[in-house]
């Protein structure tokens, strides 16, 4: 059961949404830590460019496309939820999840290929950051998908529709992180 506290809104922002914004703050600083460390190291190490040249730009670009598209579905789900159309919202959420799934599949093929080529996490400074940053991001994609499936499940029954927007906010954030990871890990060579 929910406490009365949860239903209050002294700031005039829904409690769940406010919490998601704070989650995003904590995520910004986590990814900020990784990416900040990566960028300053990258500037110091000219030779990392050579290591970076082995990444597959096309896989990265395709994954960017997939995440942007899934973000579109997430926002369409939110739109549907605001119109109290839980069924449609759930439908869009499943599309979003499907996008996440494709992203992870592409990612795992990419990694499998790189590992076969001998580029593992110990192979060099760049590869360390490459696997940590992308891995951390991939972990967030996976977590987002699981939460989204759970939200979609109740949205189907027209319950807790406000959660559709909250999980969407999180998904867009994960998308934004990738928008920065893509040039940092794939384009800069």
């Amino acid at each position: 059961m929910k406490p009365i506290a949860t239903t209050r809104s002294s700031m005039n922002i829904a409690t769940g949404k406010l919490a998601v914004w704070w989650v995003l703050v904590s995520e910004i600083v986590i990814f900020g830590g990784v990416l900040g460390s990566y960028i300053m190291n990258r500037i110091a190490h000219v030779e990392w460019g050579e290591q970076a040249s082995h990444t597959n730009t096309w896989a990265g670009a395709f994954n960017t496309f997939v995440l942007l598209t899934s973000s579109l579905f997430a926002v369409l789900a939110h739109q549907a939820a605001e119109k109290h159309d839980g069924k449609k919202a759930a439908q869009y959420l499943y599309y979003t999840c499907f996008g996440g799934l494709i992203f992870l599949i592409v990612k795992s093929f990419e990694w499998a290929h790189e590992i076969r080529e001998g580029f593992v996490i110990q192979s060099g400074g760049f590869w360390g950051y490459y696997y940590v940053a992308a891995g951390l991001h991939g972990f967030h994609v996976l977590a987002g998908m699981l939460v989204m499936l759970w939200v979609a499940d109740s949205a189907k029954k027209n319950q807790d529709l406000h959660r559709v927007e909250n999980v969407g906010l999180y998904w867009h954030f994960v998308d934004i992180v990738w928008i920065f990871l893509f040039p940092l890990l794939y384009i800069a060579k």
Partner: protein
Amino acid sequence: MSAHAGSHHETNYVKVWALLLVLLVVSVVGPMAGIKVVTLATAFGIAFVKAYIVARKFMHLDLEKPIVHWILALALVFMVLMYAGISPDVGRDSGQRWEKTSGWHHLPPQSEHTSEGQGGEHAPSH
């Protein structure tokens, strides 16, 4: 949320999405020119534009309360601060009265001012 339900519903999300895809294409094609400035502008400049569009249109930051802008700005400012405080040590090869040794670069540096005067003594690692 529901108070402004009418206003942003009409945002054409598909159009925003299409714009994002165009930007994506530019960010992939731009760096192919191989000019450093163009690469930086297209790859990283466009990343900021894309992030801004997603935050504004998909996350509806344009309709969000000022407090949300403040807390996000807080996190971003602290990250800039962190970068500014750390990069003078980590992002450079040498500074006042210190320098990193050759082991620093796992692979040989290509153009490093600090390696001046070291002559051929690094030959084994080249």
